[in-house]
């Protein structure tokens, strides 16, 4: 059972049941779809972006607990952050998911993002966790309207 608790942490269940920043964002300057054809997770990320900062962010759509909680945690983590800070978090989160060892010290710095550490033990679910982040990255780089986790 330890394994399940590791994957479905309270943070994840909480953000799944009560997603933060959920819904359309009327002031959005960017809108990117994130779609995982394998499982049908499908989200739209709305970002209100100026030259330097993510002024506001929201998402809607549906999918599994991991993908929805990740989108919710992502949106609360990057709101108000600079583009560079957000990109750095994306990079960190992706590294985290790619399974490189993370020290306790680093894990502490990750805060809520560390809740997703358990996903690494379930390779087929990693894309669920990274989907919204890829959509955010696509919005920040302005490289299209659909994000892929490939």
């Amino acid at each position, binding site marked *: *059972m330890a*394994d*399940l608790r590791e994957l479905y942490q309270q943070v994840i269940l909480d953000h799944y049941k009560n997603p933060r920043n959920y819904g359309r964002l009327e002031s959005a300057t960017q809108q990117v779809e994130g779609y995982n054809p394998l*499982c*049908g997770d499908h989200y739209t990320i709305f970002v209100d972006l100026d030259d330097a900062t993510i002024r506001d962010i929201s998402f809607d759509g*549906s999918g*599994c607990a*991991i993908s929805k909680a990740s989108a919710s945690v992502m949106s609360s983590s990057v709101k108000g952050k600079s583009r560079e800070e957000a990109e750095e978090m994306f990079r960190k989160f992706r590294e985290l998911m790619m399974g490189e060892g993370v020290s306790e010290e680093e894990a502490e710095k990750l805060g809520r993002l560390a809740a997703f550490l358990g996903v690494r033990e379930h390779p087929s679910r990693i894309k669920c966790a990274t989907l919204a982040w890829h959509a955010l990255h696509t919005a920040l780089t302005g490289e299209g309207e659909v994000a892929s986790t490939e």
Partner: protein
Amino acid sequence: MSSMTVASGMKRQRSDYDIEAIRREFPILRETVHGKPLVYLDNAATTQKPQSVIDAIVHYYLHDNSNVHRGVHLLSERATADYEAARVKIQHFLNASSEKEIIFTRGCTEAINLVMYSWGRSHVGPGDEIVISAIEHHSNIVPWQMLCEEKGAVLRVIPVNEQGELVLDEYEKVLCERTRLVAISHVSNALGTINPIRTMIEMAHAHGAPVLIDGAQGVPHLKVDVQALDCDFYAFSGHKVYAPTGIGALYAKRRWLEAMPPFQGGGDMILSVTFGKTIYNEIPYKFEAGTPNISGAIGLGAALDYVSSIGLDAIAAWEHDLLAYATARLTELPEVKLIGTAAEKASVVSFVLDGIHPHDIGTIVDQEGVAIRTGHHCAQPVMRRYGLAATARCSLALYNTPEEIDALVRAIRRVLEVFG
């Protein structure tokens, strides 16, 4: 009657069905998963292999490995004899009138594509219509879309009702003089519906249209008699009927095969080759270019022997009781909603839990040792029809037991606890 009574009653009633002996034939069923005994309920994706199939493949590589239809040496003759014997086993299994009507393919998908490329391209033109159903697997949708696009033909779709049954009145309306082919599944992989293919074939023939049956989920669960059905094409995969992956077969009526151009060019499908002209081999070899999957074919022959040794009637009866038990146990949980409740079903229970994504269900029940499929089951139009992105699917095989259904139900209770 309580579920327990049903389970023990089922075993008494089917006391001639030696489930313990059957399970011993499948070595993989002794595996543990996350420290729990494996409960394998993903049989519509692929089935496990009995020892006799594994032995047949090993025996071939240990003693007979050689190319077929080529050598005059002993090993080649043995390999050829075993490969061709497997073709005859398929012929008998489907009750085809000749082994020349059986073509080995990579699987059901390749068999359907063979018909599309060879028969379809030479028989379908602009404005012609291909009829499929709303509950097809992608492998019986996409090839026909490709053909329609290439030829300017039109794809027509038989609708499905809320229970998951095809609407035959609508099917009758779709059939017309432009209908060139009807391509439908025997059993739906996503819903478990057994389609009334005998009636549907008659209806198509009344309009002069031949019929292809996607039998991927039919062959493992139902007795198939292609002559009684009078279908024109019947495609199936080996790995869903206890044979290895990478082998399957197409049955086609001889008159179609004689008229069809080759599917692929290469060795084995020719009688003579010059740069001026190539004379194609006779059927079925005309459709089997290149060195085939010899060990796979031999494994498929062994798998059909195995199924026949138990008997499809006995298997169908066991699985029917098990399906009824699974349906009853799952619907005891008020959170479970079944997707696909046709009157005639085989093997499959597709379901959703309100507010819990099927992938989360799949991951959690896996921790309990229970393997089920979660997702769109390569049937996205079916999912869309029921307003879903995905379902969880329990699919049964001849070796499953009521106790395994109980394990699934316990695992689903765990899912509800985690998300509680």
